[in-house]
């Protein structure tokens, strides 16, 4: 009998002999069946199954539920008794693999390209599948991410990647899933009015006041013109001058790509409706600090939202001091499709599940909060046919945790599977932990 049985003792996994991150290998493809048994299965769509089993065959989920027989066969079985089983978390917008070290090392950053209309720029081509950050995120249950370029007005296309790969082609889960646009700001910039002051002032920021709304609208018109010209260009296949920028907008008109509009202000988001009405684009708001104020309008126009870091300060001094925490509940109530994100440059997005936890503290149910970092994100990124929930037919992107992953103290991830491959949870941090436990003789 070749049946392999794994009891789950997480520390054994973590205490594997110290290796450099270079020796943390992407997992090999696993053909055949595997079972994760007896866990509390959080499907991701709101359903929780106690004492349930997930059956995986050739990387796909084939059964979920209780009473699933585990054959005495050549299969892998993972006992998750007392543990919680979740869909792999999805980081819905990030610079993962593009920015290695945020500050002070320009050479390590490939997230911002020069130019205003970079429709043709593709984040996937710079995605570094060996980034040190990636393995750490897996340790926090994040198995997929959308990787987006930044800067300019149209920054380029994002791709969805899975986080256990040899290279970017290997990592690509959905290539060029969306085009990213930063909506011009309608807010007067800080320091625009003044000059002088203590002690240095902002040299060069003084001068004649500009009307920020007018300036923004001028830029919006330029963006629309770009799309109008792209639309015309795409009507004709034969061009004397090939224009890569216009060509790259095709996916938006074909609805093969979504338009991810980055903006936090009400007016920015309302302008985004224009892109639905005039061009028929699928629009997703990224940021959405003030989205709770227009939740009904977003719903009416079928606009989804990827909220920015929830652990943020209130936008204004007078705002409810917990406003960012309760914004997800407002969107949920209005029926807006939304995902939660972690943008924190200090923790490099590892706290995604705790953003969901805070949303659960301030008005979402725990399962709604989970959906906001799994199934909702998959829907928004257009990969919900393959991932985002533990449902039959989807990829076996699964994590198993000691307890509630939304709450930090119980959220230790003990297993993770991507497309049925059991991936290593080792990373530079676990390796250094191990190294110094050895030094001090700590258990």
């Amino acid at each position: 009998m070749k049946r392999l049985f794994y009891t789950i003792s997480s520390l054994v996994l973590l205490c594997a002999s110290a290796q450099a991150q270079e020796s943390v290998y992407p997992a090999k493809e696993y053909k055949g069946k595997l079972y994760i048994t007896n866990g509390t299965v959080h499907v991701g769509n709101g359903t929780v199954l106690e004492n349930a089993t997930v059956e995986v065959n050739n990387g796909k989920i084939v059964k979920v539920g209780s009473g699933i027989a585990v054959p005495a066969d050549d299969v892998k079985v993972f006992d998750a008794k007392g543990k919680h089983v979740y869909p792999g978390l999805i980081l819905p917008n990030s610079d993962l693999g593009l920015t290695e070290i945020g500050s002070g090392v320009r050479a390590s950053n490939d997230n911002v390209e020069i130019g205003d209309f970079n429709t043709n720029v593709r984040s996937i081509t710079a995605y570094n599948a060996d980034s040190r950050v990636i393995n750490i995120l897996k340790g926090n249950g994040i198995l997929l991410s959308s990787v987006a370029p930044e800067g300019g007005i149209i920054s380029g296309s994002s791709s969805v990647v899975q986080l256990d790969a040899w290279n970017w082609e290997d990592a690509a889960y959905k290539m060029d899933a969306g085009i990213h646009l930063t909506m011009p700001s309608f807010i007067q910039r800080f320091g625009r009015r003044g000059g002088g002051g203590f002690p240095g002032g902002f040299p060069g920021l003084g001068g004649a006041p500009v009307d920020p709304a007018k300036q923004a609208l001028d830029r919006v018109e330029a963006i629309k013109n770009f799309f109008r010209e792209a639309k015309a260009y795409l009507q004709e296949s034969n061009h004397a001058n090939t224009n890569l920028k216009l060509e790259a907008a095709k996916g938006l008109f074909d609805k093969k790509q979504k338009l991810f509009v980055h903006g936090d202000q009400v007016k920015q988001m309302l302008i985004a409706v224009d892109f639905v009405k005039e061009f028929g684009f699928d629009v997703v708001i990224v940021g959405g600090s003030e989205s709770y104020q227009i939740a009904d309008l977003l719903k009416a126009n079928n606009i989804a939202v990827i909220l920015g870091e929830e652990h943020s300060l209130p936008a204004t001094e007078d705002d409810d001091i917990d406003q960012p925490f309760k914004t997800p509940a407002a969107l949920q109530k209005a029926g807006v499709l939304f995902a939660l994100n972690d943008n924190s440059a200090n923790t490099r997005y590892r706290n995604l599940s705790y953003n969901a936890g805070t949303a659960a503290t301030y008005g979402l149910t725990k399962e709604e909060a989970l959906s906001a970092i799994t199934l909702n994100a998959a829907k928004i990124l257009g990969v919900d046919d393959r991932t985002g929930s533990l449902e039959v037919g989807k990829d076996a992107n699964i994590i198993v945790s000691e307890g509630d992953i939304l709450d930090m103290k119980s959220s230790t991830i003990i297993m993770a599977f991507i497309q049925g491959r059991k991936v290593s949870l080792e990373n530079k941090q676990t390796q250094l932990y191990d190294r110094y436990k050895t030094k001090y003789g700590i258990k």
Partner: protein
Amino acid sequence: MRKLKLLFSGLLFASLLQAQESFPVNGVADKRDGCYAFTNATIVKDAQTTIANATLVIRDGKILALGAGVAIPKDATVIDCKNKFIYPSFIDIYSDYGITAPQRAQGGFNFGGPAQLTSNTKGAYGWNQAVHPEVDAVRQFVVDDSKAKGLRDLGFGTVLTHVKDGIARGTGAVVSLANEKENLVIIKEKASAHYSLSKGTSSQSYPGSIMGSIALLRQTYMDAQWYKNKPAKEGVNLSLQAWNDNQGLPQFFDADDKWNDVRADRIGDEFGVQYIIKGGGNEYQRIKEIAATKATYVIGLNFPQAMDVEDPNDARAVSLGDMKHWELAPTNPAALEKANIPFCLTVSDLRDQKSFLTNLRKAIEMGLTETKALEALTKTPATLLGVYDKVGSLETGKQANFIITSGPVFAATTNILHNWVAGEKYGIKEDAWSEVKGNYTLTINTVAGPVKYALDVKNASTANVIGKDTLTGKFTHDGKMVKLSFSPIAARRPQAPVGGGTPGGPGAGGFGGGGRGGFGGGAAATQYRLSGVSNGNYWSGTGEDTAGNKLTWSAKLDSVYLAANTDSTQRRRAGNQRLAKVTYPFDGYGWEEAPKQESILIKNATVWTNEKEGKLENTDVLLKDGKIAKVGKGISADGAKVIDGTGKHVTAGIIDEHSHIAAASINEGGQSVTSEVRIADNLNPEDINIYRQLSGGVTSSHILHGSANTIGGQTQLIKLRWGANDEDLKFKGSDGFIKFALGENVKRTTATQGNNRFPDTRMGVAEVLNDAFARAKDYEKAIKLDPKTRRDLELDALVEILNKKRFITCHSYVQSEITAALRVGDKYGFTFNTFTHILEGYKVADKMKAHGSSASTFSDWFYYKVEVTDAIAYNAAIMQKVGLNVCINSDDAEMARRLNQEAGKIVRYGGVSEEEALKMVTLNPAKALHVDNKVGSIKVGKDADVVVWSENPLSIYAKSEKTIVDGIVYWDREKDLEQRKKIQAERFRLTQKMIGEKRTGGPGAVRPAEPSWQILLSCGDHEHEDGLYTVELHEGESKDK
């Protein structure tokens, strides 16, 4: 012809100039005595004394006599001032009239650019470019009549002018606003000395912060004292010499904000100086603290304009605090008066100085008495400057500086007619000299003989002609020229439509508006068109009737309307207005009434004691007199307020070992060693993040200097007493600490144009430490040997460290730099009390333990910069297991609201027990800060700094329901919900009021809505999770917009 004209005007100008004795005369001598008598006037000698029907006599620019029944010299030119008022002209005590505004050198100060470590001023001056007490305004002063005229038009005759630049600005001069040669307008050459917290045009890197400016002033006071003994090694220092020379003068401090007022006053207190403080117009928000300074204030009248908040999205960005200030700013002078704080008024802050009198009237409407207003513009400034013997009131022998007005000077309808400076007349509104309003007899010499009409002149553009009917004619009177046209015969309608009626139009019989539109339709009528010249009470001229007959006419004044006496009605109106309340702090979440200390009994909770008792179930905690009085079961309430703690958790308040909130500046990066600067000098108790952090259970925060330099500034431990003033925010009786920093930031890794400030490597950082303490040791010895040794505040702080009177919190990341620092400490015999950030602490935990350091770190930060690439989330757990006292800190205004959760992460990363994890944000930081005898655990006798949590405090689902400091409930989740409603209601009221202003105020009544930016000061180390209207400022960046 043209040439002649020019010559003529040239002559006219010359005649205004008094000849100065030593100057040659080109032409025939034209000395005049300038003797004038102003008769029949109401003379306001000073704010207290008014003489009716009096005469003022002047000669040679001086007042010769004044009073009722004063003899008029024969050679006096008599000016009849019937119905006129005469006041002493105003004094602006805060002017830079006649001074060219200094410009910052090309390029200027740039925080990303190379450091400028020494002064660019050439000559035998001091080391800091912003300290130039040697500048004398009198030497730069040049008469500028266009500027002078602007001030004279407002009623000013004298100003104190100075160079508004730098921290020590030099002396000011009292000058008159006469258009004369400079020699003759200077009243007092050195009348004042001036200071500020702003380095102005100085391009030198130091100081780069408010606390740096304060430290520089403090040091300069000491240096100047020391310089009095002419220390040989200092040579000649003209700046210190001037500083000493200036000390006898009135000392002015441009503070420009309520908290800076208080800060400035404290500097003065240290050195026995009482400053006259130039305020910021928001003094009413902290009037008690302002009164306690016992300073005289100089107050501007720059009331904020209403904003255009019609668009709710724009309105949203404007804070309630800014809206309230818009409404209440005009109450500032009245608030000062009510609190018996002496003050002067100045034009200097106004963007449009023409609004001075309008704004002053607004202040009077809001309760400022006219007596006080006049005093603030005359006697008070003159007395402060020691020139009351010359100006500031109307008395014999004083300068003939006065204004003649058409009525009481502060009444809305009053015009300033003349402004006399040193006996010379400057016409302001000559055309209004004759009060046009009144009843006249109009005589028209028609072909049929003279016809008389009564002419009732309402104002310069409206008049009624009264014959059989009252007719409104087209009328203009521009002071000298008069035009009038009217039809003497009533139209067919029984009542003449007066003005504005459209011939044949609808609206029969209606009174048209304004009377400018000619006459109503009707039968062909004779119409007179008259034009003439006003000679005051008598007008005469020529005209024509509709038949083309030429005629002459005259009009003579019969009786005058007097300007309505002021403003009791207006003031009554203001008294009835509903106005915003001053809250503490002055923003939405401030208190109208501060919460009080209570006896509180928390019943039946799970109590995390942090003591040997551990976690106690179903336990009561009694808080009394600000202390924890009892912990146990079945404690009787005995009058205490009872909180049901069933199902809830009680912990000691969270202590944030590393915070940058509640300060006006954080980083003084001007030099590598700035141990002289003190966060305590610039606490900001109005930071909204105090309140927000209370909601996360934080009760104490250690406010650290930033990490811009190796030896940073002295820190301040505070308690989050929301609503307290800066002084009361301090955690009393706590040990002094100081911030050190190592690594990337102090070697200025991110300097955009390279770094020229030592150190540039970690090798250099270690040497900065070595050098500083070597100097400190030498200094300590020198002071002991010779008490006359120059006091050096920078080294004083280091000596305190050597003597274990001050303790270090050291920003640090990598093991090499940590070890190097430890060895410097060992060498000089001091301990690095705490290493903060310390993300590689796990690599050298044993060494830190041996040295005796605490560690204060982040739970799970990594990879935000090169020096944290080896950061691991297991750091705290390893250090704790090695035996270090480990704290988890925020260094982040947002995350500080969730430090309990950060502690929860330590359970997850490395398996520390829950109770030990909680200690990392309570008891352990108390130990690191040497206050564990007062706070950090639930123990009888300790401060009642306690949090009631909805559940296990390490859980993400836990909320602080009540946060209590000193037995005072500063955070109450239910009350917060009420407060939100109040904020909404008050915002609504003020928004409506501003919209009203926009609708009724005409064009230009409102300015575009300006977002109220929330300023976050940061150590400059990493990103923060900011809100939409939040601005993060780093080293050297300005808080001012």
